[in-house]
């Protein structure tokens, strides 16, 4: 175990492994808050972990709990969760090559933070290693967090006190920044973000993000066919 860890640390570089663990620590704490809120909303103690294992998608899980907890119908909760998770479709295409040796496990672990971490790596071998390392860590931390949260109950629900709500967008920003050095990608991403933010108050929670893809319609208007990475 220890040797395997050292080997992983050597292949990834200590900096990358530390970064992955930092993100996962934050994910674990958010998991605690997820478990606490879900059980606090009246769902059984096993519900957070059932969701964290079967669905493995934070935003959709919070939304599902929110709708069920508010007395909404399970059908609405499932549909809302599916709509929020539709963004994983292009993620799957972007990382198809990365997970080609283990497509089922790779698809299962395809979570926002993992996708962002993997895409921030250029080298295919490193990208694969980062994807599966971060994915496996996230699975463990998210599930331990969900379980602890359910057991602890409402002791820790306000993770905002620690600024953790700012940590998730910050992680994404840090990881996509290399891709945003490309001017074309940056322009499209900024237009997309403006669209998503503008329509967020009008649409069901979590779905506005999908409309950011409308920015890609500008692609043919942009000069230079250079590969955006």
């Amino acid at each position: 175990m220890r040797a395997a860890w050292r080997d992983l640390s050597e292949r990834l570089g200590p900096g990358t492994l530390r970064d992955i663990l930092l993100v996962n620590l934050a994910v674990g704490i958010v998991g605690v808050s997820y478990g606490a809120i879900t059980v606090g909303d009246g769902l059984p103690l096993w519900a957070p972990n059932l969701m964290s294992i079967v669905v493995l998608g934070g935003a959709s899980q919070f939304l599902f709990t929110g709708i069920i907890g508010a007395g909404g119908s399970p059908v609405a909760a499932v549909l809302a969760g599916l709509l929020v998770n539709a963004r994983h479709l292009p993620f799957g295409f972007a990382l198809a090559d990365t997970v080609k040796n283990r497509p089922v496990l790779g698809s299962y672990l395809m979570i926002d933070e993992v996708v962002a971490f993997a895409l921030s790596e250029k080298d295919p071998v490193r990208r694969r290693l980062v994807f599966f390392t971060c994915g496996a860590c996230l699975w463990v931390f998210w599930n331990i967090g969900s379980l602890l949260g359910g057991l602890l109950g409402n002791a820790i629900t306000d993770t905002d006190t620690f600024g953790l709500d700012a940590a998730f967008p910050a992680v994404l920003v840090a990881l996509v920044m290399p891709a945003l050095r490309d001017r074309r990608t940056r322009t499209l991403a900024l237009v997309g973000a403006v669209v998503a933010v503008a329509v967020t108050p009008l649409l069901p929670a979590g779905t506005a993000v999908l409309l950011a893809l409308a920015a890609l319609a500008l692609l043919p208007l942009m000069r230079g066919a250079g590969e955006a990475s």
Partner: protein
Amino acid sequence: MISAPVLIASAVLLGLGTFAFRAVGPLLHARIRVSPSVQSLMSMSATVLLVALAATAAIFDGSSPAGWARVSGVAVAVVLAWRRAPFVVIVLAAAGTAAGLRALGV
């Protein structure tokens, strides 16, 4: 409150649907050749989605405004990331800024 069988069935449905979204790309990849331009378009889509996700998560909590503390924390992260600060510094500075501003009552 929702019964256990309904809850389990709902979780499984959401899980299967989510898995299907994630798996279309990887499973098709083995069967059809995806051209480099499509691959590059998908990469760009992923980046656009991640940036939109970061922007909406920075500004909103669900459909209502998240407040200045979170927005400021993420703004600090944007500046630090642009200036190539280390990852740990970016994330801790964002959380620290948001937490600090809240402690001050923002």
